[in-house]
């Protein structure tokens, strides 16, 4: 890749992110899948949420994995970013809670209070 190629790719990807933040892009579900998260059952949470989303035919939701969120006491942890809503981090999300989050937070826009842990840390990259 050339320098120009790298810069162009970065710009494209950053635009997509900006779109999401402006409330136009898709809903993101980010699941912490470091060793700790996986050990606590993040893989089951992942498949349950993907399954629930496809069952409800929600087209605009992206489920992705990420590394450790650092929340070891409350694994598996899941961040949900709905455009136009503050991003939040849920803790202790097993498969059933994952399905509840899809039905409540993503479909109805209502937070699942008992499992709400915090909002994400300030992002030094922004």
């Amino acid at each position: 890749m050339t320098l120009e190629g790298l810069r162009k790719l970065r710009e494209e990807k950053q635009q997509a992110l900006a779109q999401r933040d402006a409330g136009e892009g898709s809903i993101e579900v980010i699941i912490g899948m470091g060793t700790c998260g996986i050990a606590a059952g993040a893989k089951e949470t992942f498949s349950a949420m993907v399954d629930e989303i496809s069952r409800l035919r929600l087209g605009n939701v992206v489920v992705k994995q990420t590394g450790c969120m650092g929340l070891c006491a409350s694994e598996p942890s899941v961040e949900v970013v709905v455009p136009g809503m503050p991003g939040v981090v849920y803790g202790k999300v097993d498969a059933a809670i994952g399905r509840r989050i899809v039905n409540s937070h993503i479909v109805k826009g209502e937070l699942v209070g008992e499992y709400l842990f915090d909002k994400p840390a300030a992002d030094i990259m922004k």
Partner: protein
Amino acid sequence: MAYKQYVLVCSGTACESSKSKDLIQNLNDEVRKAGLANDVQVVKTGCFGFCEKGPIVKVLPEETFYVQVKPADAAEIVAEHLVKGRPVSRLLYDAAQSKAHAKLEDIQFYQKQVRIVLRNCGVIDPDSIDEYIARDGYVALEKVLFEMSADDVINELKKSGLRGRGGAGFPTWRKWQFTKDVPGDEKYIMCNADEGDPGAYMDRSTLEGDPHSVLEAMMIAGFTCGSSKGVIYIRAEYPLAIERLNTAIAKAKDYGLMGEKILGTDFSFDIEIRLGAGAFVCGEETALIASTEGGRGMPKPRPPFPAVKGLWNKPTVINNVETWASIPVIIMRGGDWYARIGTETSKGTKVFALTGKINNSGLVEVPMGTTLREIIYGIGGGIKGGKAFKAVQTGGPSGGLIPAQYLDTPIDYENLQKLGSIVGSGGMIVMDEDDCVVDITRFYLDFSVDESCGKCAPCRIGGRTLLNLLDKVANGNGTVADVEQMQTLSHAMQRASLCGLGQTTPNPVLSVIRHFKDELMEHIDHKHCPAGKCKNLVRFTIDPDACIGCTVCARRCPVSCISGERKVVHVIDQSRCVKCGACLEACKFGAVLKS
């Protein structure tokens, strides 16, 4: 439909009893009256852990934190805060007052952190190079290759004040300078990912969550020091980290960001992964090099330092994972930016693995200079089960115990050293009143003795002798002379051991003698373990007046050493008792006594 604001109301048992139910009802009514029903959601949440000030109300996204909110306050919160955007100051939580409170504030696990090393951990998909690039990934490499000279890079590192995060805290720029200044075209860049401290896992998480940041930084070092070959030495017990590193390397090569003539320049760089078998001593740089070369993992005397004569006897820069992950940001934002974070002598942030008797165990990244109290109570949410804090062990088996009176010490390399501990790799194990310092120190010492490579006598023999002496104390046979001998031995080991392992093995012992002399002497003078953890100093007996002969304890005893019939007082056979405490837990009548 999406709400713009959330009003979180604690509905834990304590808050529920202080009328949080009515409060929620009133808030909902007021929100509806104000016509905000489509914009604001009132949410019942779990306990915020700050029950004495309940009910607690938190408004998102602005994080306003209200305490002792009464049902009658709902109207004001809605009318003032939600409608007009003016927080109700009389209900606001007074942060200044909170400092005086040793108890728990609200949970602010993320909000008190400054995440530089962990900037992408838990944010990007570690298997996606595109996501890394979108978050300014490889911007630093670009900058270095096209706009900076090797000296510029070293100068930025110097300004940043970055010191090695692996334990010793040696200035990173000086390592790089040494290697750069040695003539020759065959040099190596190494990443030390042999994380071995019990309870520390920040390196694993960084590699699992953001592998490209380490790769990028190693390439920057390659350019700066004139090397084209990098090696990551990682323990084989980290399969997921290895897998993600391999994926990251393959993708970077695919994009032409690693390999021959990177981004069309003359700079070429390749990275290889070497798996370690998990010996603690291989985290020591000369032992790590020996192991990478295929030899037995044993340290060598320094000098020569690896910066001059390292892997295959060539100049080698070795940095730890966390150090590497900090570097792209330093290059991007500049050394001055980084140096504004932290203390006079310790710049930037440090990741700590917070474990033990703590509510929010986890990985936290805070600026250097943050106090232990802030980490343990502010971020960690305090001690489990509301028990009393006893001590925190920083730096794993190479560190020491820090007691409660030093909770307000700002953490940096120098301050922790003054207290007889070290920052180390950043393990932070919290202990409560139920932990015995002698027992814990034995655990660490046992670990270090097991992991000693045996090359030098002070570590091999000294460590074993220290452990024997401590065992003597734990068994109730210790004497005052033993304590003196432990001290003498410790000082000898610190001075005469070949590498950091032996030099720091006595640290836990010395910290107990220094900070917990009373508890240690209690074991010696009265053959009594105040926390009841040293098995040979504990005795379980049954109070004949309280025992009703229900047989529960006898059935629960794993070695069947409790005798007695139904409705007859039971007796524990002391000669066979293994001091497991199962009878104590089982008895519902308080008849089992521990002394």
